Every structure is written in structure tokens, then in C-alpha cells.
């Protein structure tokens, strides 16, 4: 499979069909594995890294799940192509910085991606739409078992799977979900939620993982610890916390509809106005405004069938995707113009926000929104 095919296919997990997909954009699980008695990628010399890559790669490529896969050495990918893969969460930012001695193999549906010689010899990840951590882990577990029958992984009876960073030792598993929480952000409850979640050994991060800003009201929540707890226990605990956050987000939206409908209506109207008429837009502004439109779809203010085109804009307005769709090299200013242009064109099909729908769906005829009209 060629890179152009990767580009023309939207990742299946992006299509938003999984359970709780209105709030849980995606679920992902990754496993870190290393070969026994070989230097970890960060410490290995180039020759050893290359040898390790050549040892692992054929086993990954012949997995039945990897038929018709995209397999590329990092040195053969351009900076732009790497960035596109980062924006699609198919490789990590750390992996994008790698060159000789590293590779990425992913399936056609873009639901499974395996990085060779990232921070660990093997970083395998599985992505699903909506809240499906258990299913994502199940697939990875199968792949891990298949690879383990042919490669000898570094494993210790007491410490479990050994990883380059001690924060991953044990299960080597990081399970995470991307949550869209505009309700909690608009009602200024998000910090409470973030703090509560941090206290129980889970991490909350921005859109692109560690150290990134929360944009577009998107938050990643994941397990912080990997030692002393079974894989399915970690996933069950995380799933439970996410379900609680989903309830809190729904509650926050209801309160906004009942008590702050003016604010909500204003936010949606402004987002619609700016996106429809602006001629220059940064990717941060685009994400933040698109998030409000997405909320509007959840609340029936916009028709449900416009969900996919809006969801696609989240990805298509990212800097590398934008650059990739243009034939010439763009500077930041030109990108902002092109971004606004693409958004205007796609939003032509989006009807004006219809507040009567919002009022009807609050489930309560005497809501402030309806009395306003």
C-alpha cells in the first residue's frame, strides 16, 4: 500500500460509529515490548538498531492482520508525511523524529499500527471509534501472543515486561480514550474533573499526548501506572471512570440548556458565523470552533447527517493535512487562508443553527430557550 492510499482513506476509528461516539472520539491501547538482552533503541548504536529492525520487521509484516499493510522505513518518509501520520495518531511525535533504524507498519483500515524502534523495540497500538478499550486490547493481545511465539521478549518473573522507561514496566500497556468535553469546559467544571481523575492514578492530557495543550475541548485520559495491576483490571477501571465522565458531560450539557441557554446559543451562533465567514484561521481556532459545531450536532441544532463532514474537518484542517492537500509549499499565513477557505466551502451545506430543535430536545417544554422565541 502506498502513502497516497493512506491519505485517501479516513481511518476507520475516525468515522465515529462506536459506542458513546458523541463524547468518546476514539479508544486506543498500546503495548510496549522489547527483545531480550538487546540495547533499547535510545541506547543502541545505529548498526544494532538496524539489526533489530531487520529481525522484527518480517514477523510483523507476515501477521494475518497486516495483509495489504503500509510498511515504511522512517528514513523513506518525508517530514510532511511523518507529520500527517502524527496528526492521525498513527505514529507518535517521538517516532516522527526517528530516521534510520526505525519503521512503521499499519493496516489498511488504520486501526492497527506497529512502530519498530520507537522508545522500545516494539510499540503496538490498536485504535477504535467510541468507547471500545476492551476490544482494542483484545486485538493487541492476540498480535502480541503471535509475535511472542517467534521473538523472545524481555520479561522478568517479578517485574513483567521490561521497557526502556521504568514508567511502562509490567504490562507495558497504556490504554487511553479521546474525550470531547465542551459541556464541562463551557460550564467551567473541567478542572474539577481533571483533578479528580489525576488523583486516582489516571492521566489527563491534551490532543497530542504528553505536554500538549487541550484544543478543541478534546482530552486524552489514560492509565498512569503499569505495574501491580492486570491488563483487564486497568481497562475496566479506566472504562468505569470514562463512563462517569460521559455522565458528567451529559449533565453539564443539560444544565447549560436549562440555565444558560443564552450563552450556549451565543457560542454556537458565533462559531457558525466565524467558521462560515472568516478568511484566515489558525488550527487552534478552527478546532475550538469546530468543537462547538460538533456540540451543536449532538444537541440537534444542526442535522445529524452533517456529523461526518464536520468530524473530517477536525483532521483535514491540521497543519500537515492542509499542507499535504495543497500542491505548493505554504507558509503559516497561507495555511490560515487555505484552512478558512476549506472550512467555508465545506460549511456551505450546513444549515443555520435551529434553536427550536435545541429547546425541544431539552426534554422540557418550559425551557428558557423556548420561552425566548
Amino acid at each position, binding site marked *: 500500500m502506498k502513502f497516497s492510499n493512506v491519505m485517501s482513506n479516513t481511518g476507520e476509528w475516525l468515522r465515529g460509529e462506536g459506542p458513546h461516539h458523541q463524547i468518546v472520539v476514539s479508544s486506543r491501547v498500546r503495548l510496549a515490548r*522489547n*527483545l*531480550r*538482552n*538487546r*540495547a*533499547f533503541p*535510545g*541506547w543502541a548504536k545505529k548498526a544494532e538498531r538496524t539489526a533489530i529492525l531487520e529481525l522484527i520487521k518480517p514477523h510483523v509484516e507476515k501477521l494475518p492482520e497486516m495483509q495489504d499493510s503500509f510498511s515504511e522505513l522512517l528514513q523513506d518518509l518525508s517530514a510532511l508525511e511523518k507529520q500527517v501520520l502524527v496528526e492521525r495518531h498513527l505514529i507518535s511525535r517521538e517516532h516522527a523524529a526517528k530516521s534510520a533504524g526505525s519503521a512503521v507498519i499499519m493496516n489498511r483500515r488504520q486501526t492497527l499500527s506497529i512502530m519498530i524502534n520507537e*522508545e522500545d523495540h516494539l510499540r503496538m497500538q490498536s485504535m477504535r471509534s467510541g468507547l471500545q478499550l476492551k476490544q482494542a486490547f483484545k486485538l493487541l*493481545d492476540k498480535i*502480541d*501472543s503471535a509475535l*511472542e*511465539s517467534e521473538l*523472545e*521478549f*524481555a*520479561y*522478568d*518473573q*517479578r*517485574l*513483567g*515486561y*521490561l521497557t*526502556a*522507561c*521504568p*514508567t511502562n*514496566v*509490567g*504490562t507495558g*500497556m497504556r490504554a487511553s480514550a479521546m474525550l470531547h468535553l465542551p459541556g464541562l469546559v463551557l460550564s467551567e467544571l473541567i*478542572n474539577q474533573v*481533571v*483533578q479528580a481523575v*489525576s488523583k486516582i*492514578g489516571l*492521566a*489527563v492530557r491534551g490532543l497530542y499526548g504528553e*505536554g500538549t495543550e487541550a484544543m478543541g475541548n478534546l482530552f486524552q485520559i489514560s492509565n*498512569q*501506572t*503499569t*505495574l*501491580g*495491576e*492486570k*491488563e483487564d483490571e486497568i481497562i475496566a477501571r479506566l472504562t468505569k471512570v470514562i463512563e462517569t465522565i460521559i455522565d458528567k458531560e451529559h449533565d453539564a450539557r443539560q444544565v447549560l440548556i436549562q440555565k444558560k441557554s443564552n450563552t450556549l446559543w451565543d457560542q454556537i451562533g458565533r462559531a457558525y458565523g466565524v467558521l462560515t465567514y472568516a478568511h484566515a484561521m489558525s488550527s487552534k481556532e478552527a478546532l475550538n470552533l469546530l468543537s462547538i459545531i460538533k456540540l451543536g450536532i449532538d444537541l440537534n441544532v444542526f442535522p445529524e447527517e452533517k456529523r461526518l463532514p464536520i468530524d473530517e474537518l477536525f483532521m483535514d484542517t491540521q497543519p500537515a493535512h492542509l499542507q499535504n492537500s495543497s500542491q505548493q509549499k505554504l507558509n503559516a499565513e497561507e495555511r490560515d487562508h487555505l484552512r478558512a477557505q476549506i472550512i467555508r466551502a465545506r460549511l456551505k451545506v450546513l444549515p443555520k443553527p435551529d434553536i427550536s430543535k435545541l429547546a425541544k430536545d431539552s426534554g422540557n417544554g418550559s425551557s428558557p430557550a423556548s420561552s425566548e422565541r
Partner: protein
Amino acid sequence: MLCDVCKCNDATVFLTQIIEGKMQKVNLCDACSKEKGVQDPTGFALADLLLGIGAAEEIEKGSSTQRCPVCGFTQMDFKKAGRLGCSTCYATFTEALTALLKAMHKGTAHVGKVPQRAHRAGELTDKMRNLNESLQKAVAEENYETAASLRDQIKQLEGELTS
């Protein structure tokens, strides 16, 4: 003094925490302290991570000349990179790592998936221990016929274990 997290900027935030009666010190640069939420006293989102860094200080106090026999990694390298050299490093620096892992994780022992290979090796080791115990018992009881059969079984098992 350099920041304990990014290890490139000068530390400007010096944090001391008493955890389980032990003093832990962390030095952070402005950017990292903001990122880790240290400047927000109510937040403290990544206390676990800070604990980890505190424990890394302890590693430094340990023998810093020790080298991993497989990859040549030292404790100073770990302090610098925050990553280990190879899987054998866990055995080489076990003493220092124990404190770190304890501070970082929920438990100190793995309870999750066991690879088939290790699972089988674990079973064989258990079996070997049982056979050796039985053998000693048989010898003590002067039950030489049983002892001879046990010895043969042990030999066979040794062959399997080394294969």
C-alpha cells in the same frame, strides 16, 4: 542546576515534599513546573511523576560506577536520559530501581500477562524444584530405586530447560 524533567533548562522552581516521612526534592524549570501543574498548589496533577523524580535522586546516591554487563549503561546515564540501556539493566540496578518503581506504580510485582515462553519456563522451574526435593527425601530414606528414577527425570528436565 538543571531541571529534573527536561534536563536542558536551569531549574527555577525548587519543590520539597515529605512523603511517608521521607524528604523528596525536585528541581524544575519554569516551563516544566507549569506543565506539571506545580505552580497550582490545588492541582498537583502529576504527583506520581514528581515522586518518581524524587526517587531518581536516590539512585544518584547509590554506586554510580556500576555498569550493566550487557550494554555498558551506568546509573549516571539513567539520570541523564531517564531511560534504561537494555532489559538486563533492571537486574543490574535493581536496588536503586526498586525505590523508583515503588514510588511510580500501584504495586511492585507484575500480575498481568505472562508470555507463553516464560510461563512454560516457570512451570519447568517449579517442576525441577519439586523433583530435587523428592530426590533429597528419597536419598535420606535410602530409597535408592526411587532416587535413581528421579535423577533420570531431573536430567531429562535439565535438557529441556537448556534447549
